[in-house]
């Protein structure tokens, strides 16, 4: 087990290394240098060249990469080209906000999806089951920005009549103004973005939970438990659910990149000052160090979560041995 974990960590580091090389090459090989967008078009060419030279960007990527890698090993992700702040500082500002938003929506969606999926599976082909599966079908076909826009519309326009003109839900940002740290205010600001993220995850998770639960319910030991005369509730929740819930752990771990992808759009719509918004703005201005920083962070988290999921799996399920 220890050997397995060490091996996995080693492979993960190797993977991160490859990823940094791949993404580094990808950003450098695409046409157009940085500063060709979002900069003053009348900027003196000589100044632009000097800046490129100072940042080492006039060299080919395979000569830039070792320097980058060296800095990376020392925990330095470089400075943002656009606002000259270390990328680590930017990430420290933004990541907690994203974690707050994504974590809360993940918990909310799991709290809804798991009971829903279990109920749908134990009452297969009932009205609740068919309604759930139809709704989750629609749910996976709705892109996150469409949902976000409609929530905005609902919060802004349709609920206006309730409050005599003002917006019912705050539409943008984390706080009413930057100085407040009021918890109630924060929660109130989170309602719409969390709803937007959670609805989409519920659709996916509940489908998965239903399938997983159905698979377990058809297994022999469940039939044995039923044959012993155990009440249905005990069979469903004590015997079946415990095994059916395991794959969800892996699913959640595997979905980390998708969460961040979804967060890019949701954070954009609701102006949530998180990592996704940072990465999007960086991509538009070709702020390579920031993009690379976010991608590496997400990749590292994905690898870490996968490892944790596998280890947790082995702890919970004694049949699995590494």
């Amino acid at each position, binding site marked *: 087990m220890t050997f397995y974990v060490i091996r996995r960590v080693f492979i993960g580091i190797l993977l991160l290394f490859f990823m940094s090389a791949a*993404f580094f090459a990808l950003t450098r090989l*695409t046409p157009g240098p940085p500063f060709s967008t979002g900069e003053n078009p009348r900027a003196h060419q000589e100044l632009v060249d000097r800046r490129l030279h100072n940042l080492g960007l006039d060299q080919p990527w395979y000569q830039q990469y070792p320097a980058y890698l060296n800095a990376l090993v020392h925990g330095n992700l470089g400075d943002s080209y656009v606002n000259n702040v270390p990328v680590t500082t930017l990430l420290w500002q933004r990541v907690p906000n994203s974690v707050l938003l994504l974590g809360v929506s993940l918990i909310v969606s799991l709290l809804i999806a798991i009971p829903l999926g279990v109920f749908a599976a134990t009452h297969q082909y009932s009205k609740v089951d068919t309604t759930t599966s139809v709704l989750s079908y629609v749910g996976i*076909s709705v*892109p996150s920005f*469409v949902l976000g826009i*409609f929530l905005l519309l609902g919060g802004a326009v349709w609920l206006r009549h309730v409050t005599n003109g003002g917006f019912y839900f705050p539409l943008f940002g984390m706080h009413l103004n930057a100085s407040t740290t009021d918890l109630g205010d924060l929660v109130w600001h989170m309602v719409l973005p969390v709803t937007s993220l959670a609805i989409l995850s519920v659709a996916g998770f509940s489908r998965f939970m239903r399938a997983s639960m159905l698979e377990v319910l058809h297994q022999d030991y469940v039939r044995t438990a039923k044959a012993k005369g155990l009440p249905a509730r005990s069979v469903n929740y004590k015997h079946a659910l415990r095994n059916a819930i395991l794959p969800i752990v892996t699913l959640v771990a595997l979905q980390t990149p998708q969460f961040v*992808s979804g967060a890019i*759009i949701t954070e954009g719509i609701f102006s949530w000052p998180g990592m996704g918004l940072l990465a*999007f703005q960086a*991509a538009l201005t070709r702020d390579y160090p920031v993009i690379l920083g976010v991608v590496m962070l997400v990749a590292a988290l994905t690898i870490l979560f996968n490892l944790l999921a596998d280890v947790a799996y082995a702890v919970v399920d004694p049949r699995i041995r590494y």
Partner: protein
Amino acid sequence: MADQPLEKAPQEFKSMLGGTKLASVLASEGALRKAAAKEDLVVAEVAEPSELGFWRLSVMRFLHHRAATVSLVILAIIILAAVIVPIFQGNLFRTQDYTHPYGAPFQFQSRVISLPVGLSVTIPWSDHLFGTDGLGSDELARLIRGGRVSLTVGLLATVGYIIIGGLFGALAGYYGGWIDNALMRLTDVIIAMPFILVVIAVTAAFGGVSLTVLVGVIALLGWFEIGRLMRAQFLVLRESEFVQAARALGASDARIIFRHIVPNSLAPIIVSATLGVSGIILLEAALGFLGLSIPPPEPSWGNMLSDYNDFVLRGQVYLIAFPAGALVLTALCINLVGDGIRDALDPRQR
């Protein structure tokens, strides 16, 4: 003789699938066999379902999936509209009617049409059935034209990544070795990245986005799932008996791959590709929404929504509802068709 089972077969089939056309096909085949039997020819006994062939049976099974069939019809209408209607509309999608910006949808006025025979009839008529956008362009024309972009990107990128992924997956699965290792590690790398962020970074780096760039970027970055699927299929089929038989008969690698393994590994690829089309259409829409798809005035369902702030604050729900509805309807139909295809190709998975 083989008379009896042959005569019984059509009825059995009719009750099983309920297809009358199928029954008649089977009946004619049965008659043929009976004639052959009368002349005392030896008729080979074949299990009934296999006489229809895998693909015919799959089509029959698909048509019995009601939601999938309805979705296929709706999808066909959407695709036909997107292909045909813009040909007749010319520049209507970017003709700006400055006198009617933000025109409301479904505004009918009566219009008198005089027929050549001397009669004249009054019909309800609307210049802009779905209203107009902020520049006074016809929303319906934009919607149909936008569908063209979305569907083109969806289909072309999918074809692209089936070719790339299929090829790499086949090579990796069949030959194994370093190409297999390279593929698997590359997939690990790509899977751990947030896909949309990578696509945004690459498309933003290209500056002006065109259809070619969009399709190229999505196809080049999105083929990994198909690649893995193809690899898994090849790993299983490579060791199967019919492939061993082909190899024993001296078939070349190319012949084994393309004649024997590929046709047998298509089913999951087709399902995954169908679902992939809806994924790419939604991805393109997300990119358009962020302003990174086809630049205006060319509309796409995504970039029609990119001015959402205006629409939300002005309360112009229809300008949001039509593109969003088109997007969701298309994605839903494709997903249902994909589901239908999965059930049809692999009935065990139900």
